């Protein structure tokens, strides 16, 4: 699980959705796992708005095997959209062969047939009984979909970032997201070619 | 309390020219004497006293006395003092401000220093006017009185320093006049020693810029006015409402010993360190 196995040249991910869905935390945890556990160069930027809840929220990651100059994404390799609005707004920034990951519970009108759809919010509500776990469920799914992001590294980061009393629930969410993605989209990880 | 002049001379900076710049009869000199007597009475060394002044006539005081002295910007003396006290709580910080300094341009700092209860002594030398800039009205210029910027009489109301300080929660709040030097010594001694934020308002005459424009013949008449119109706060409280008008109470209005902000911050540090 080290950065040496994969050569990434500006791999760009946008995590987007509504304020309150934990998008910024998701970006921070994912960035930290990739930077500190895997040893990639990572820049994580986000849009700051005056609104703390509701409204659009996004967090961008640029991941690379060499130092990153320009810290913002230019062409997205992955767009994660946890709301219809975010999907509509950012789909045009996704590369033609990029991967769209949506929360099918929140996004009903898809701009393409080529996407990964998992009902993260629904799973969080029904299986975990905590809607706040949506973001970590998403992280779990991404750990499966992106071969360079290891689930154990993500779990380690979760333990560093979250207070002890909510760790178990979050690990559970991480595993659930991972297995759900694996079950629904077994072939996606093979899509990537890193060299 | 005689034989104090020689003592005062010991605290003055011998490299500075005397007599000082203040106009004849200006109470600022009396206040400087009182600060020195109070520091001496408390047995403090010159090194542990920091005298911080603002801008204006009162601001000039700092240069004359052999303490650690800082002549700051207009109205901001209390902010410097907050930094000094927090950085080194062992220092005794005395802040000298005029009325324009403390309550007009520095009003925000005054109320927040009081609210924060930072451990400094705030001396407000209230002469009801901007002296150094030439007699413009300040936030303590009485209604209807004249200044160079209120040539037709002042329409605004003036601040009551004591009530303002009380409202902001200062530990110790007091008032005296330049004519009541013994009371001033007592109040200042107490204020320097007391924890938290301590206010001493000194009514001090400015004949040059205020008295002349407001029907006083000379500075002595202004002192006589203080003698006639001030009353000990204890007696003031016994007066029936109708007899209080025009009387200025002097003395101690609040005397609390709540710990200063710097002390509480020290306790916080202790707590955090013991947890580790």
């Amino acid at each position, binding site marked *: 699980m080290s950065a040496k196995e994969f050569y990434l040249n500006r791999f760009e991910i946008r995590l987007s959705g509504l304020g309150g869905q934990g998008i910024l935390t998701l970006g921070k945890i994912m960035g*930290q796992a990739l930077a*500190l556990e895997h040893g990639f160069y990572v*820049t994580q930027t*986000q849009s*700051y708005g005056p609104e703390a809840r509701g409204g659009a929220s996004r967090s961008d990651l640029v991941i690379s095997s060499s130092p990153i100059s320009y810290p913002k994404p230019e062409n997205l390799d992955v767009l994660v959209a946890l709301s219809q609005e975010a999907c509509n707004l950012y789909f045009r920034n996704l590369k033609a062969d990029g991967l769209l990951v949506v929360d099918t519970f929140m996004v009903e009108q898809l701009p393409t047939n080529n996407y990964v759809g998992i009902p993260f919010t629904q799973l969080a509500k029904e299986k975990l009984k905590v809607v706040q776990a949506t973001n970590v469920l998403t992280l779990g799914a991404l750990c499966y979909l992106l071969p360079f992001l290891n689930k154990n590294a993500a779990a380690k980061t979760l333990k560093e970032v979250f207070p002890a009393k909510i760790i178990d629930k979050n690990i559970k969410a991480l595993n659930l997201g991972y297995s759900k993605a694996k079950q629904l989209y077994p072939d996606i990880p093979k899509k990537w070619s890193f060299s | 309390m005689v034989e104090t002049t020689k003592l005062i001379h010991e605290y003055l900076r011998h490299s500075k020219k005397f007599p000082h710049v203040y106009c004849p009869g200006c109470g600022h000199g009396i206040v400087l004497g009182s600060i020195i007597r109070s520091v001496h009475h408390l047995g403090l060394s010159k*090194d542990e006293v920091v005298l911080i002044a603002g801008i204006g006539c009162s601001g000039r005081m700092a240069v004359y006395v*052999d303490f650690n002295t800082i*002549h700051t910007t207009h109205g901001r003396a209390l*902010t410097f003092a907050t930094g000094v006290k927090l950085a080194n709580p062992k*220092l005794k910080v005395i802040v000298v401000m005029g009325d324009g300094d403390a309550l007009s341009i520095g009003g925000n700092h005054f109320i927040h220093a009081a609210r924060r209860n930072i451990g400094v002594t705030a001396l407000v030398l209230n002469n009801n006017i901007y002296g150094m800039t030439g007699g413009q009205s300040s936030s303590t210029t009485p209604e209807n009185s004249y200044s160079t910027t209120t040539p037709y009489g002042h329409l605004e109301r003036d601040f009551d320093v004591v009530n303002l300080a009380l409202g902001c929660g200062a530990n110790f709040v007091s008032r005296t006049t330049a004519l009541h030097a013994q009371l001033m010594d007592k109040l200042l001694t107490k204020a320097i020693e007391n924890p938290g934020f301590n206010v001493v308002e000194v009514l001090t005459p400015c004949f040059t810029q205020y008295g002349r424009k407001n029907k006083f013949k000379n500075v002595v008449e202004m002192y006589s006015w203080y003698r006639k119109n001030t009353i000990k706060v204890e007696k003031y409280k016994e007066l029936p409402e109708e007899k209080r008008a025009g009387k200025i109470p002097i003395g101690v209005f609040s005397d609390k010993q709540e710990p200063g902000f710097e002390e509480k911050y020290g306790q916080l540090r202790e707590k955090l360190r013991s947890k580790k």
Partner: protein
Amino acid sequence: MARKPKRKELFALGNEAVVEGALLAGCSFFAGYPITPSTEIAEGMAAKLPQLEEGVFVQMEDEIASLGAVIGASLAGRKAMTATSGPGFSLMQEHIGYACMAEVPLVIVNVMRGGPSTGLPTNPAQGDVQQARWGTHGDHPIIVLSASDVQECLHMTIAAFNFAEKYRTPVILLLDEVTAHTREKIVLPRPEELTIINRTIPTMPPEWYVPYEETMRGVPPMPPLGSGYRYHVTGLTHDEHGYPTSKANEISALMHRLFRKIDQFFYDIQLVEEVETEDAEVVVVAYGCVARSAKLAITQARESGCKAGLLVLKTLFPFPRTYVEKLARQCKKVIVPEMNMGQISREVKRVNNGLSRVVTINRVDGQIITPGEILKKIYKD
């Protein structure tokens, strides 16, 4: 041989890196007032300083008070700082002048906004470059630094403290929202890897101490308040004893010393990074987050065979004129992209003085200048 402990790594915001840098530099006092996009610096200090033996964080009533408290703390012997953004920086200007005049070491971090006025609080801009240079009234020298990535935020904060202490002067570190709010991995240097400079304190008996004495370096020693060296501090022009003066010869000596102490160490202060400038025919001069855009642009230009280079300014003032002049002589075109209407390009043009063609890229819409925009100017004749 004992293995050295692993350096601590953090995934941190630029603002958080400033906090780490300040603590490594020995900062133990912070006074500030919340303002976007600098607030994480205050929040970080609020959490960390009380954990130190002597650390103090205080949230003041406004930015004027914040810098006043910082000056007071510095006079009392602390390494002290504040952080703010455009509007707050404007409020601090009077006290910046005071700190220049009274020679009080301190650090101000300004995470810039666009303006005028409240402007654009949550988007990046580089609107305060000339304000940092000339914001306070009266002639004065000043040191202004910048940083373009998160690790550099840490190192430039340390540099800011070192310059402040070495030259007894306020130092301003200008950041932008992108740099302040980007998270990246930073590596905390081990203390023994760092050079930390502390102010010189007087060593003569107090009676012989002359607070503003002319010295070789032009920087007089500075005792903490209460240490036995009683002297007078003032913002008025003063003689070497610190007493106010209006005598022409004394004022002249003071003012010239203030300038000299910065000027004569110009080569120590001017920090830049040169990227592929050796054979460059087109040079981009940039600072802050825009320097990162420029870096990608010149990489792309080189890939297509265009001899492009980059000069990243880490010191903005005193303006690193020797580097700019050298490159202006060498290349055909100098491109200055910045997120204002031309604040550093004025300096570049002044130094360039007709040597080369100076082209500017200016954005004032709260958006970072992209590598594509710079690339276009590199190619364009």
